[in-house]
């Protein structure tokens, strides 16, 4: 098919982020810009200070919760699957399965269609809509776990290990480190789905977002603040506590009896990584695609060309070469690895 447009004229990396010259907007810019399209609410993708922001309603809500009401000049909610015209460029948001409100952004102009995945995963997740593969010419993929060693097991098996350990060590508390947006709520929901019905204690950093998830109809059960006021050391015996990973190395963690430190992250696949972090019970639960999910997604989009944003791009580019798919790294800066 004739393409009136070259892919690199429709989207190109700039220091601020991925830029669309005909549409005059950026996707997930890391610096303040005029028009920003935002895939999801994690702080490295959703920054404050843009003149206008287009994102799903959930992402706008989450940005408001995290950055304050006036995080952008103007905002516009994008409905999933509905195409908008931005300066002649057709833009459609599709679910990405990463966290609540996360979306891929499909950009189409002059017969050229590019899909920017943002962050995504393919494992089922009760806290957000599942990823939809969108046929396209160019697929821009993340590669956080872009190495064949990263193979995420089914999340319910990982949660079963926490519950088994809690039964084995009823006198100790289990501290689960989980990123405050998305991972924490997914872990809590998985605990509920596995039949855990005791209160879950949460670190203060999780309170607002967890309440938001609950208001969106995602049932997390009874959550209690993990404060010293809410109980003495003995009251936390046998408790499951969820908080941001950084808090567990902090003095905050001292209120719990002989805690078993758990960490929910795709990095926990690597034993040495768990060991260095003092993690006793690694939980391989990730909101990013693992190696198998990355390559199946690339195949499903049917894209002739793959651009790799952040992560371990060299292995994924190598795999594409072996498969006869054109691929190149974009070298975008400013995006963080999960849980680092």
């Amino acid at each position, binding site marked *: 098919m004739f393409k009136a447009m070259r892919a690199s004229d429709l989207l190109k990396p700039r220091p601020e982020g991925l830029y669309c010259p005909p549409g005059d907007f950026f996707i997930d810019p890391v610096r303040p810009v005029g028009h920003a399209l935002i895939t999801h609410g994690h702080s490295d993708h959703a920054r404050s200070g843009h003149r206008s922001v287009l994102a799903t309603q959930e992402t706008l809500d989450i940005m408001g919760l995290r950055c304050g009401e006036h995080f952008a000049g103007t905002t516009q909610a994008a409905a999933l699957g509905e195409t908008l015209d931005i300066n002649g460029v057709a833009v459609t948001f599709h679910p990405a399965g990463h966290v609540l409100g996360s979306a891929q952004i499909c950009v189409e102009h002059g017969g050229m269609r590019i899909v920017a995945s943002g962050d995504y995963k393919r494992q089922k997740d009760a806290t957000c809509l599942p990823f939809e593969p969108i046929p396209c010419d160019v697929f821009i993929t993340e590669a956080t776990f872009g*190495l*064949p*060693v990263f193979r995420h097991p089914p999340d319910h098996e990982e949660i079963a290990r926490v519950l088994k350990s809690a039964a084995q060590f009823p006198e100790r508390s289990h501290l689960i480190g989980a990123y405050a947006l998305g991972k924490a709520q997914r872990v809590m929901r998985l605990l509920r789905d596995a039949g855990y019905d005791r209160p879950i204690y949460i670190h203060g950093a999780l309170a607002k977002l967890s309440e938001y998830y609950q208001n969106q109809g995602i049932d997390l059960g009874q959550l209690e603040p993990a404060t010293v006021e809410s109980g003495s050391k003995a009251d936390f015996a046998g408790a499951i506590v969820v908080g941001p990973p950084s808090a567990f190395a902090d003095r905050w963690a001292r209120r719990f009896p002989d805690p078993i430190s758990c960490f929910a992250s795709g990095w926990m696949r690597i034993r040495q990584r768990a060991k260095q972090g003092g993690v006793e019970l690694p939980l391989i639960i990730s909101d990013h695609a693992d190696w198998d999910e990355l390559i199946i997604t690339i195949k499903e989009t049917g894209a002739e060309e793959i651009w790799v944003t952040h992560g371990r791009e060299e292995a994924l580019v190598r795999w594409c070469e072996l498969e006869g798919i054109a691929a190149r790294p974009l070298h975008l800066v400013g995006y963080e690895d999960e849980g680092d």
Partner: protein
Amino acid sequence: MNRFAELLDRLVLTPSRNGKLTLLTDYFRSVEDPDRGLALAAITGDLNIAAVKPAMLRALVVERMDPVLFGYSYDYVGDLAETVSLVWPQPQGHIPDHVPTLAEVVGRLQAASRSDGPRVLARLLDDASISARFAIIKLVTGGLRIGVSARLAKQALADLGQVDVAEIEELWHGLTPPYTALFAWLEGRAEKPRSAALALFRPVMLSNAVDDNDLEKLEPTDYAAEWKWDGIRVQAVCEGGVRRLYSRTGDDVSGAFPDLAAAMNFEAALDGELLVGDPREATGTFSDLQQRLNRKSVSPKIQQQYPAFMRCYDALQIDGEDLRALPFTERRKRLEAFVRTLDPGRFDLSPFVEFSDWETLERLRQAPPHPIIEGVMLKRWDSPYLAGRPKGPWFKWKRDPHTIDAVLMYAQRGHGKRSSFYSDYTFGVWSGPEGSEELVPVGKAYFGFTDEELKEIDKYVRDNTIERFGPVRSVRADRRNGLVLEVAFEGLNRSTRHKSGVAMRFPRISRLRWDKPAAEADRIETLQALLD
């Protein structure tokens, strides 16, 4: 297989001893024979499987995937067994009909011929989950390295059956995997297994440290005194032509000391200390003894230069007669007569230390006649030989430790209960010419302080951090700033591995010297003077 793999995964990351014991006993309780017995054998190192070399493992995997992608993966993970377990491609459309049991895996590996081995291994990996692949590779590459000693595994068995660990140790060398009779006994389903095997280990009698007020309650005439030799406590057992030299925990160490084992031509079980040198002339120092430790093979030259001998403490059995119930006085008489019949270059008697009152003994203890003596032992004349550490019959009264003042240099976060505390401390002393002194690290300690002191040091570390590397913080330490720690230690060895050239034995924090300026901490020369 999956339960064994899960057990390994948990044990590797569980730092606390009690946590490991819980995991082990739960496993032994919930897993059936013969899997649990094979797991036990794998942990204690008693499972015999032909080893697969790392190069073979690598060859197997690059036959199945792009070598460049394997290279990226291995570079990232850093451990071959783990990398292979993760990247191993499951054959297209291959769905294993069932998860193999540990017994099936071990059976297939043991039945494989040398040339067949790699193919059998590959088939097993095809059928296994990621964790199970890791466990299988660990089984065939030898050495699980999961931080569980044979002794700890035996303690878990003792917990399972509510019996004394000494009973298990005494039985151990007569048993073979998968230990079905042992588990049956521990679960109360059968009699204690009787062993027909010869030259078994007998659980060792241990002593308690003398506390501050112990001595005034004790009558000097009730006790014999001997020097406490700082070698390796061993038990030499010969029965019906079988010779075994056991460590204190019942591990067979005969292989490391073939020279001593060759001289064991008697029918007896003797308790004593393994030392080096010729007992008729001179006893070697601890540094000499070190030449014989942790070696895979002992060359004839080393055996000649540092010959091993045994200084005998006690006789548990002589010519088929069990002496353990007799009083020490009687056992000692038999021992004295018996040792006279042995090779005098390989066996001698631990001499008594003559004393009439505790003050005399204290003076002797403070000035022992040989550097490898670390104190005195007190043994009640009327005590039978009892397994374990009974309170009362035997005491150890150690020489006071050495101390130095060192400066805290690095602090590392602890594990488990201490994971929010900086509780492992690297400390250094001054070296270099006056005016340009530098701290050189001399050791690392993670105990000796109270919980209250730990909080204080932790706060100090957080307030004085100058750099971070992962779980380690570098703490401000120069002539004007720094926390001085009084460090107690048992002895000092030369070390080529440490920049300072010395390595401390058993260092611990004895006092926090908040009052002492960093510049007044000790110099490296103070330590060098202690090297023997």
